[in-house]
């Protein structure tokens, strides 16, 4: 029951966002070349790109839904499933890898109890890897939402994660 409630409340939350989506789409109406920009904005709004959003974007920019879906699945940044409140991204760029980011990733998977690409049950964290965030000088690095953490050690990972409610 509890999950159902959560789900429906999440859906209600989402429903409130559609008018804003319509505005965004209207700004780019009839310009298919703006698709990626619109998807960025839509994902910023919803946190992911549910089917209904895809349909609206397709219609507004006058492109087929399959094309929209094709673009979404091509790019790593876009997600069609709901994400956790905080995105934890461990950098597996070369410099980070050489400085031991694999161990940080292993620890993160162990601590959060999820694999790469997964989201914790309480929707608090999503775990992913990124290929270089350009903080090579501080390797190993990770990204939580927009915050970059450098010189991450597997031992202080838990402390960092705790800060994100």
């Amino acid at each position, binding site marked *: 029951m509890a999950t159902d409630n959560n789900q429906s409340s999440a859906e209600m939350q989402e429903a409130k966002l559609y008018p804003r989506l319509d505005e965004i789409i209207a700004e780019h109406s009839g310009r*298919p*070349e*703006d*698709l*990626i*920009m619109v*998807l*960025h904005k839509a994902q910023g709004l919803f946190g992911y790109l549910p089917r209904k959003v895809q349909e609206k974007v397709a219609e507004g920019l006058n492109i087929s839904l399959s094309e929209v879906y*094709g*673009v979404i699945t*091509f*790019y*790593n*940044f*876009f997600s069609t499933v709901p994400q956790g409140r905080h995105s934890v991204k461990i950098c*597996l*760029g*070369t*410099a980070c*890898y*050489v*400085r*031991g980011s694999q*161990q940080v990733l292993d620890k993160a998977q*162990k601590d959060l109890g999820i694999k790469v690409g997964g989201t914790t049950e309480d929707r608090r964290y999503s775990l992913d890897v*990124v*290929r*270089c*965030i*350009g*903080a*090579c*000088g*501080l*390797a190993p*690095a990770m990204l939580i939402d*927009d*915050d*970059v*953490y*450098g010189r991450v*050690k*597997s*031992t202080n990972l838990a402390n960092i994660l705790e800060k994100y409610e």
Partner: protein
Amino acid sequence: MESSRAHVLVCAGAACVSSGCREIRDAVVNKIVEQGLQDEIKVIETGCIGSCDLGPLALIYPEGVLYQKLTPQDAEEIVVEHLLKGRVVERLLYKEPVTAKTIPSLKEIDFFKNQVKIVLRNCGVINPQSIDEYIARDGYFALAKALTSMTREEVIDEVLKSGLRGRGGGGFPTGMKWKFAYQSPGDVKYVVCNADEGDPGAFMDRSVLEGDPHSVIEAMAIAAYAVGAKQGYVYIRAEYPLAIERLVWAIGQAREYKFLGKKILDTDFDFDLDIRIGAGAFVCGEETALMFSIEGKRGEPRPRPPFPVVKGLFNVPTLLNNVETYANIPSIIMNGAAWYSQYGTEKSKGTKVFALAGAVNNTGLVEVPMGTPLGDIIFNVGGGIKNKKKYKAAQLGGPSGGCIPVEHLNVPVDYESITELGAIVGSGGLIVADEDTCMVDFARFFVDFIQEESCGKCPPCRIGTKRMLEILKRISHGEGKLEDIDNLIELATRIKDAALCGLGQTAPNPVLSTLRFFKDEYVEHIVDKHCSAGVCSSLFDAPCQNACPTDQNAWGYVTLISEGKFKEAIALIKEANPFPAVLGRVCYHPCESKCRRAQIDQPVAICALKRFAADVDMATFPSFRPVTAKSNDIKVAIIGAGPAGLSAAYFLALKGYKPTVFEALSVPGGMLAVGIPDYRLPRDILNAEIKSITDIGVEIKYNTQFGKDITSESLFKDGYGAILLATGAHKGQKLGIPGEEASGVADGVTFLRAVNLNEIVKTEGKVVVIGGGNVAIDAARAALRLGAEEVSVLYRRERDDMPAYAEEIDEAEHEGVKIHTLVAPDKIISKNGKVTGVECTRMALGKFDKSGRRSPHVIEGSGFTIDADMVIAAIGQLPDLSYLNGEGIKVTNNNTVEVDKYTLSAGKEGFYAAGDNVRGPASVVEAVADGKKAAMAIDVHFGGDGLAPNAFRDELITMVVSYDEAEYQKERKRMEMSHLPLAKRFRNFNEVALGYQANAAVEEAKRCLHCYLREQE
């Protein structure tokens, strides 16, 4: 800049932001206001200063003082001490990684002083959010010059003549590209900036956009003017939010100042610029894919031609350059092609920015002239390898590039030279890999990356890289076959030929490159099922054991000690090693250098814990005695009672053999007895350990020389089934300089042997030791103890190059030994046949040799004399194999016994060899390992299983500890071992390192991270 008495520049590159530079800026501003200095001192947030590893950092002008690794608490001291009182805050200055010397000024720091900044000229100097500061540094003057005094053709010609080539990786001449775009017919054209810096390990584009966005805007306007475009796009990756923010801001400012828009600078030239943000696809760095992505489509590459300059964005001619290429343009237009082309090599002009990262001390962005030797970038600018590890390779060019091994450190970094070595300059990612990087795994890492980023359009890339990945994974799991190497090469060649775009065509490069220079590592994984870097974890239980030549189960005994199970610990230790008390004192502990704990603070003191277990056992009655197999009555003769010979005897005895060791001297132990002085290895400890070997049935016959008292013929006749040669390397090498025959000159091993056998009991006056190895340091410390008034060590390279153990060098200095580095002896001076001094010259270090160390060369006219009453030459030892005369055993050019790598068989039936007489002078642990290996090979020879004892592993591998592990996994330094106070070392050979007490040992052992425990899948 406004006229202020001082400027505080706070680096606000992305790396420093993440290290907390904003808090520091705020704290500094607050303190300045508190002190009422706000009208005199200006605080500026700049772009990346370059030295990311030192961040957060601040630069204070006019002095140019650099403060590093700041915290907000440091603000008060900086403001009150430096800005108010004019006193530099020593504590916060940069420290040279090797010498730990503090360096106040930016200009004197190696990292900065070896750079030439053209692309990064404004990064870290100006506030990137202020167009006025950009203009104050001649910003937009180049655009004005181009628009008002140059024709479009002249602009293109200038770029052409400058020799600038594409910095994104292609290296195509930029001027040519501009010319083609100019010549391409069409009313509408675009200029595009590729800021999709996807190559992992490269971040110069990010830094330029964050630190100097106007330089790119200005350059794009110049390019648009030259080729005839009115609209430009910057395609920037979404992973760079700060760069996007600053670029958006800068474009707004440029529009406001009319550098963008209609009628720029009151000419007829119109140009505007928009940003397009990527969405996380590596392939979009490829130009055709990038343009599809700007059009809002899937970023899949298409075949070329047509090239973008003919048919590009929205199917019109498009000029596409990368960020760094553009950032060069304003300076070229302002200063002229001739000025620019003074930097670099014949074919590679100008400078190149490298993102230096990985296992190097100074990470960050560096800009050097093209053609700078790779080794200079890594060791001068980069400050060398982190944690004094060994350089293994530099990876240039990311997933499209390759590795450059140690023997090519002198290569000039330019397009042609790097390509010749199978790598590419690429976008300038320069990742340094040290001995802890496994090259098979490294190749797997890149192929994994490519496999994931392959867009899937063409099968060679999509399927080919998948197959390569499967093979590489197999090899790193120890399931590879030798033919896999050929398969990899075949696949790689096919993919290179057939893939559609640059991503696929270059995808095999990391594999080909590692196969070219590190084939041995592939073979090691395939044949030996061993990963010496300690990375491929399916091949071992824990990296400590993996690193030990004797295969000592270190994780096991450390965990047993942590639980107070000392008896079990020694039983486990003695499965692999009969000399724990010895090696617990003198081992160079390769286990510790691979210990995962080092990533948190310091490695577990594995070596000292072994000593602890051994010492406890020795003090127990009865002490541990291993179980031996039932006797098989096979007699084996072992020549030499050093660590290799005695270890072989031990393992043979365990297996039921009857080994007899024949020793030429009157004492057992070989170098352990006559090489290592008592203060490092007390004789009673050594003898007790040797007794535990003879106790299990090993017989030692003294004063028996092979080739004289016994021969192979006599031994075989006496019923010995096999002979193991383990005679070590006891012959000191001559200096090869005039005068060394004088009295008072000795070689290191001879001197130490005489000291250890009590033949020399006194040294007088000034003793000069020549060499930098353990023998040199042992000789120096022994001479000091025997009464020498002054002991100096001369070494021809730098201290970090000395092969002696660092802790031994430290102790020697601590005791008063003077170490003179970069000094080489020329001649021994003597009077009446007795040595009086050494004529020396000073040395300088030049090019890198094959071992990755810089070769020393004489500084002309630097000669000087050092007084000496005794000279000890410790520059190396050789095995003395003269006794083999007539035995028909093959000897190598290095005067060592030639053996089969796997069986240590010396080529003649029944003959084996182990230890220093095979390896040349090496370590004790390697000698023990060789002895073990030879014993197992001999066992196989006689029909045994050749397996070393390993009774406890299966039980230990799941061992879970009883204490709160989490508590010990927080940062916690290793337990200190006490040392004999200096005053008590005078004129004696008492042991210096005193070992752990039980409680300290248990605490130390608890620091183990138990990385042998694997998650059960």
